[in-house]
């Protein structure tokens, strides 16, 4: 919004609620695509398909661009982690074992990095 424009409390709250409804609706829509593809895991493609379904095609280009940036960042992080692990291995064995466990927990909490993999509940 342009400078000098204010948003009333009620308007703010309404936008916030609308955003939540948007997420819930988009999730449900995306999930339909995942189920059609016989997958149990929602992936980025499902969300993009949901946007099209919801008539928000205008979001497609900026979303795809953002996804590219995100993927590059994640790749960078992964490589930094690999380097950290390599370094830890060359140090004490016990210490590196502990670090490996931490990495595993982190990965599980973040759920999947790889869209193709599926994990059964």
């Amino acid at each position, binding site marked *: *919004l342009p400078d*000098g*424009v*204010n*948003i*009333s409390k*009620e*308007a703010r709250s*309404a*936008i916030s609620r*609308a*955003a*939540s*409804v*948007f*997420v*819930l*609706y*988009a*999730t*449900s829509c*995306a*999930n339909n695509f995942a189920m059609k593809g016989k997958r*149990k*895991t*929602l*992936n*980025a493609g*499902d*969300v*993009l398909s949901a*946007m099209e379904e*919801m*008539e*928000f095609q*205008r*979001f497609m*280009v*900026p*979303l795809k*661009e*953002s*996804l*590219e*940036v*995100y*993927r590059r*960042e*994640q790749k960078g992080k992964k490589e930094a982690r690999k380097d950290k692990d390599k370094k830890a291995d060359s140090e004490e064995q016990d210490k590196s074992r502990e670090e490996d466990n931490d990495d595993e927990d982190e990965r599980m909490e*973040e*759920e*999947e*990095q*790889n*869209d193709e993999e*599926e*994990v059964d*509940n």
Partner: protein
Amino acid sequence: PGPARLARLPLARVKALVKADPDVALASQEAVFVLARATELFVETIAKDAFVYAQQGKRKTLQRKDLDNAIEAIDEFAFLE
């Protein structure tokens, strides 16, 4: 649309909403990210569209009724009714 960038909305918040859906088993990190980014774009869009009504009313403050008007007038926002 703004430049390609990462989401400013907290991903944890979006993830919580995704998990609230009983039909969803699991969602990839990327999916949560794209959802967050899409939600930002949605907020930008609805605010801009609602603001048109504020301008018509010669106001500089966006009000609830501006949002109601935008939601009623625009097809894409029908799911909010």
